[in-house]
Structures are given as structure tokens and as C-alpha cells.
């Protein structure tokens, strides 16, 4: 099946990033969001992103002109009627996803594949409310999608081989690097990352070492670019809490359970870089005290 037109449902950070990836690869791309302000905001950010691509010599202004003319936004779901694939990147809530997919199922042609960018919810469970579970696949992009090439692709229990292959080929045609994972909570990335980060937090909690010593150990000893506590400060402890609670609810793995320190830090306003203090203190964008 030839995929020519791509729909993206949801114009948040992930949706806008995925739309950039698809449009940049030459696909006609339509972003759907019921919130016109969110669409306008995403369009402005997208134009800013491509302006920087021109400044840095990655794309010419002619190329960007063509990309932006092929990339549109709409608050009318009917605009997705010509899509061959629709990637949903709406709020991480099964009911919300089912509601959006039900509408998409009515608006899109029968051959269209639906994909979900979920990071923690079961593909099979989301597919069950899509009206087309055989033509449903997981496509988890990494944040920021426009810069990260990895996509975790998961078939649900009823996904057809033909659908998975078509989505896999499409992913590669976008210039991304797909990896196949089973439909398991957290897939690969979050399944390993969330408990690992929780373990690092528990070490702080237990007084094993200071955050800077833990981060220095992992960077020096294993060559990681960033330590787990620096990463948590960047992601934000509030975001970590949401993802970890979703993972724990699915796995009941004790390592996925959020350490009590996280909630105490959130209550104290220590969310990370965005509030100026998390495991480290920040002044502007520079880190000190590490």
C-alpha cells in the first residue's frame, strides 16, 4: 500500500514534531486538532523550526517553502478524509484516545492505517476502540520527534502483518529508524528508563550519594552523556510522575513505583529546570552546585 497523505491527530509537542518529520520527508501532511489556538501555536513553532533548518544549511528556503505548503492544519476532522495513515498523538488517556479514534474511523477511508504514539498504554487496548484493530499499529516517537530518529513500533494482538509492514516501510520512508517491540507496557525505552530513574532517585532518598556524585559516576564509569538525575530535572518530576504511575499501573513492578521523594519534591515546587530547582539548583539555563 502506498502512503502519500499523512494525518496527525493532536498538535501538542509530539504531534507537531511528528508532522514535521512526515512533511520534511515529502508526505502531504495534515494536522488535526479541535483547538484552533493549539494549531496556530504549532504552526508558528513549526515555521520557526524550519527557519532554523535554513539558517543552519540543512534545508534550502525553496525546500522549506514546499514542505510548508504541503503541511496544513485543520480543526475539521473531515480534512483527514484523504489520509492513508493517521498517527494519533492526543492525551495519554485510553478514553480520550478511543473517543478521537471513533471519530477518525468515521472520517477516514477504510484503507487508512491508524497508528498511536502512546508511550505507556497498550496498543491492543487502544486498537480495540478504533473500529479497525487489524489496521492499527503502535508508533512511539521519541521526544523531540523532529530530532530523534528512533521509533518503537508495536503490533497489537489483532494487527495484520500487511499493516505492520506498510507502517514499518512508511516509518523508514520518513527517514526514521524503526525497532520492533512487543505490545508491552513502556515498550523498550520507558520500560527500562523509568525504573532505572526511580532507582537513582531511591539512592538519593537512601543517602547512598549526592545527585552530582551519582551522575558523575554514571557519566564517567559508563560514558552516558547525562546522568539520571540531570535527565529527571530536564524532563520535570511532574512528567516523570505521570509516566511512572502509568507504567506502574500496568506492570506493578516495584521498581516502576514512584519513590516518595518525588511527590515531596513536587509539593515543594522542585520540579527540575522549569522551576529553577530539582535535584540541582539552576540559575537561568546554567547549572551550578554540581
Amino acid at each position, binding site marked *: 500500500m502506498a502512503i502519500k497523505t499523512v494525518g496527525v491527530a493532536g498538535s501538542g509537542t509530539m504531534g507537531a514534531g511528528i508532522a514535521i518529520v512526515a512533511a520534511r520527508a515529502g508526505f502531504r501532511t495534515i494536522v488535526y486538532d479541535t483547538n484552533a489556538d493549539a494549531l496556530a501555536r504549532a504552526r508558528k513553532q513549526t515555521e520557526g523550526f524550519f527557519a532554523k533548518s535554513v539558517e543552519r544549511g540543512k534545508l534550502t528556503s525553496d525546500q522549506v517553502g514546499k514542505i510548508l505548503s504541503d503541511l496544513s492544519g485543520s480543526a475539521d476532522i473531515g480534512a483527514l478524509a484523504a489520509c492513508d495513515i493517521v498517527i494519533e498523538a492526543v492525551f495519554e488517556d485510553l478514553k480520550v484516545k478511543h473517543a478521537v479514534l471513533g471519530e477518525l474511523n468515521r472520517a477516514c477511508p477504510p484503507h487508512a492505517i491508524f497508528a498511536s504514539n502512546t508511550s505507556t498504554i497498550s496498543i491492543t487496548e487502544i486498537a480495540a476502540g478504533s473500529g479497525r484493530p487489524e489496521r492499527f499499529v503502535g508508533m512511539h516517537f521519541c521526544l523531540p520527534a523532529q530530532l530523534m530518529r528512533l521509533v518503537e513500533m508495536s503490533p497489537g494482538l489483532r494487527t495484520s502483518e500487511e499493516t505492520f509492514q506498510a507502517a514499518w516501510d512508511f516509518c523508514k520512508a520518513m527517514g526514521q529508524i524503526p525497532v520492533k517491540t512487543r505490545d508491552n507496557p513502556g515498550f523498550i525505552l520507558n520500560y527500562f528508563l523509568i*525504573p532505572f530513574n526511580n532507582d537513582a532517585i531511591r539512592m538519593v532518598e537512601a543517602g*547512598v550519594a549526592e545527585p552530582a556524585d551519582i551522575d558523575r559516576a554514571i557519566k564517567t*564509569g559508563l560514558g*552516558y552523556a547525562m546522568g539520571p538525575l540531570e535527565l529527571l530535572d530536564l524532563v520535570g518530576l511532574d512528567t516523570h510522575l505521570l509516566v511512572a504511575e502509568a507504567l506502574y499501573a500496568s506492570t506493578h513492578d516495584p521498581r516502576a513505583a514512584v519513590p516518595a521523594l518525588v511527590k515531596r519534591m513536587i509539593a515543594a515546587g522542585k520540579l527540575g529546570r522549569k522551576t529553577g530547582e530539582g535535584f540541582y539548583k539552576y540559575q537561568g539555563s546554567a547549572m551550578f552546585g554540581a
Partner: protein
Amino acid sequence: MDYQIIRAGKSRSFADDHPLIAGGKDGGQVVVVVGADAGAAFSRLKEIGAKTAVLVELGTECLGAHTGENRGEEGSNVLGFSRFRLGDAPASDLVELVCQPRTTLAAIDAARAVFERHGLKVALCGDFAGRILDRLIRPYYNAALRRLDEGLATASDMDTTLKLGLGYPEGPIELLERTGIAHHYDVTQALYEAYGDPAYAPARRARVAKQRQKN
């Protein structure tokens, strides 16, 4: 500040020709006891209280096994250390420096200076089994081996995901293959015994690798 080296068997942290070993001087204010038998050699040392710091190379044991402990108020001029090393891979530049609740700041500063003088980086930690890195990474390696068995993804897709998605220099499976899965068994089994936490229980593939090493 000069330091004195006392050798006690083969060291996992420092080869005999490492500049830190060669740079030792008799009568230094810091004593560095290196080797697999460092703890026993430490127990034979006399008048250690006069030194600024005494550094004892640790294996999987806690520093307290050599110094003794006293209701959470232990600590002196004696520190433990271990240079982080995965299996048979070369030792990294990381030195985990182990202190106790009442370890003197002067001893910590002197220890840090000895290692940093030779380009090593120091992470200070409390006296816990596995120190920082083994305590943190072994559950992750066990989970990766278990998930490989359970068919979450192929080994190469798991490695690719963790490298591309998180910027890790190496995926968990290729890292364990390079450094020795049987060595992972040894480390994680010791931590399992120390903590009793199932996350440290050696994964099936680690047990198999250990069994094959014995055969």
C-alpha cells in the same frame, strides 16, 4: 601531599604499571592499600591515626567489614575505594570513594586529591553494597536479559533503542557480551545476597553463562 602504596595481591583497580602505583613514596601522609587482600593488609597496619587518610581497596564488601561499625557513628580517616570496572574490560576513570558517617573531611579531600592527580574522577558515596554504579545498573542489566528471554524485542533492537533513544554509548546486551555475562552474575549475585531484592537476582542468561564458565 605524598602518598604511600601498600600492595596486597592483585588489584582490580590498578595495574602494577599505573602511574598512581609508581607515584607512591614511603612515609607519605596518605596510605593507599591496593589489591584483593587490601582488607587483611589494612588490619595489620599500625599507627594509622597519625596519617591524614588511609585508603583501602574494596571488592564487593563494605568498608565497615574492615573498620568495624558503631551504631551509625563510625568513621575516621579510613576510606574505601574501588575503580569501576566491568568484567574484564579496562578499568574506567571512575573511582568510587566510600566514606562513613563520621569520616573526616580532611581525609576525603586528601583521598580525592590522590586520585584526581592521576586524571581520575571521584564519586563519593556511603558504605553500601554495590556502592553507586553496581547498585544502580545491575537491576537494569537483569531486566534486559529477562526481557530478551521474554521476546520483548531482538537483542539488537533492544540495544539500538537504548542507544538511539537515550544516547547510551552501548546497549545492555552488547555491553554484557563485551564485558562478560558471567561477571555480571558474580556482581549481581553478591548484591542479591546483600539486599535480598529480586531485582538483583541473576537473570537466567547470567546463570547459564556462570554455569558454562564452571564447566
